[in-house]
């Protein structure tokens, strides 16, 4: 009996190199963001269908544009943190703390620019502290940042005895119009926030820092073996979170010209939900800033949308949850995890 070797023609289609066009590359690189945008469009469509009178007129969008900037400042840095493989639950307190510094400096009669600077430095310093605590002491970021959130908020409450600070001096000032005025009928904060999102997206997609954040979140051992300082990258994401929280704190304070000791409370869960609704997966290594921004848009809209659509406030939580679950299911189907 002889053994003959011949290649078997299975008839299966030959594997082809995937189409390499710019448009295709764009979709491949932005699957999650495009998906999130689709969810947003469908949601707005449903709202328009349910309540055309409200959703085909401007005021509802204007009200979202006032609250959205705060969310954007929180969600975009949070995408970095989740991508690097950590989580931060301390940003609401950081936000309140940095805004407190802002309010104190303004109250003391100094230049508001100095107040902004002080708040930003404080936010970043707190981020550095939280990051160092998590990374150097090798603590679980979930628990350690939760602890920091309570501790910082507690500290604010102890010192202020729960008293708020009014910043009426900023009304009708240059700072007031720069931070919470109007440009062509749009609230000015949204332009600042969009600028911040663009900055974060460039940092994430086109800068060495973003590349390293993804590498560390993907495989910290590999990143370390290739000479990346893994701990430095991790801590830097927390510092960036501190920066975003400080900006969010300043914007919140400037909306009402008042700082409350609870500033930042209530942003924790919506901001985290926005990151995941936006299509950043939980396992690290990949993420999307633009998706996160759309996620923030979706989460901001649910609240005003549900009420404006004529349903009672009792429905808000239910629809919040529904949209989050549906978005997660969509992303699950839309993206594959490589190991």
């Amino acid at each position: 009996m002889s053994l003959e070797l011949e290649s078997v023609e299975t008839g299966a289609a030959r594997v082809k190199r995937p189409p390499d066009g710019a448009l295709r590359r764009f979709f491949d690189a932005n699957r999650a963001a495009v998906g999130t945008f689709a969810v947003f469009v469908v949601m707005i469509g449903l709202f328009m269908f349910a309540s055309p009178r409200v959703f085909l007129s401007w005021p509802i969008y204007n009200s979202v544009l006032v609250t959205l900037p705060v969310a954007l400042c929180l969600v975009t840095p949070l995408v970095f943190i989740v991508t690097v493989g950590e989580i931060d639950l301390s940003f609401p307190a950081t936000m309140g703390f940095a805004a407190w510094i802002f309010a104190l400096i303004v109250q003391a009669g100094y230049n508001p620019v100095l107040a902004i600077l002080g708040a930003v430095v404080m936010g970043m310093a707190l981020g550095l502290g939280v990051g160092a605590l998590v990374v150097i002491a090798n603590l679980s970021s979930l628990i350690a940042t939760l602890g920091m959130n309570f501790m910082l908020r507690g500290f604010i409450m102890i010192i202020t005895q729960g008293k708020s600070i009014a910043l009426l001096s900023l009304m009708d000032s240059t700072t007031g119009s720069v931070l919470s005025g109007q440009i062509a009928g749009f609230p000015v904060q949204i332009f600042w926030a969009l600028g911040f999102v663009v900055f974060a997206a460039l940092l994430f997609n086109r800068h060495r820092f973003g590349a390293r954040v993804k590498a560390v979140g993907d495989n910290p051992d590999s990143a370390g073996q290739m000479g990346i300082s893994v701990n430095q990258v991790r801590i830097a994401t927390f510092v960036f979170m501190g920066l975003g929280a400080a900006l969010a704190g300043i914007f919140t304070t400037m909306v009402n010209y008042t700082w409350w000791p609870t500033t930042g409370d209530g942003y924790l869960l919506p901001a985290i939900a926005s990151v995941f609704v936006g299509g950043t997966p939980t396992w690290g290594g990949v993420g999307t800033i633009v998706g996160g921004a759309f996620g923030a848009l979706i989460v901001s809209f649910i609240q005003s949308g549900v009420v404006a659509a004529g349903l009672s406030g009792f429905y808000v939580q239910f629809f919040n949850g529904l949209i989050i679950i549906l978005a997660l299911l969509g992303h699950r189907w839309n993206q594959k995890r490589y190991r």
Partner: protein
Amino acid sequence: MPDRLIELKDVAKSYGRVFAVGGVNLHVDRGEVVGLIGDNGAGKSTLIKMLAGAIQPTSGQIFVRGVAQPHWNAARSRDAGIETVFQDRALCVQQTIVRNIFLGRELTNWLGMLDPGKERREAERLMREIGFTSKVFSPDSIVGQLSGGERQGVALARAIYNKADLIVMDEPTTALSLTETEKVFRFVRTVRAGGRSVLFIGHNIHHVFDIAERFVVMDRGRVALHATKTEVGSAERLIAFMEKLAHPEGIASFDPSHNGAVA
């Protein structure tokens, strides 16, 4: 005096009271291929991780071109011209081929902004150069979509980009097909022909014997043999020596004066 590239002097690594590597002397000269062999647990991987700066030696010194390196780490190792192809390949599998080739060595402008066009072109060139090309992937393909051999290609491409003086390869042919193994050999020969050095760690003694000119055998954290290809003679004699190490009661087939001596 040969052109000494890297020298480890009395390098040891202990975890608690367990010595993974105990007082090893090893050197690699410019333009030579050194084969490092030894059984599982002999300390090969620990040794090359120290060379790569991924872990710190407990004691001993590392010299690069004759200069002692006091604060050795992964970044310094790469700066000194040592590129390591790790056994697990040290890839980030959710990232693109481009990102993996330039992992830790991104091509940027002075602001740190990436230069995607240049990175892409360089990645294409490198993959072509080492013969790991395919119609089914592009530089923007995710590494997680690639086969084992293709992933090895990415790790090799990364290792040659920097024109490193020494390329350390930890079990580069493990789990590769015959043709892929042949590509790895061709890669080693190309590197060698370019006047650069390779430290080749392997399980398969036939593979290592074919490719290397000098051999270092490790056994339980120590160097058991330093020998040139001429001294060893054949892969079979090397295998016999390894067997003797594993079963000391067996027949001695080597001149004991080579044992542990620094060549």
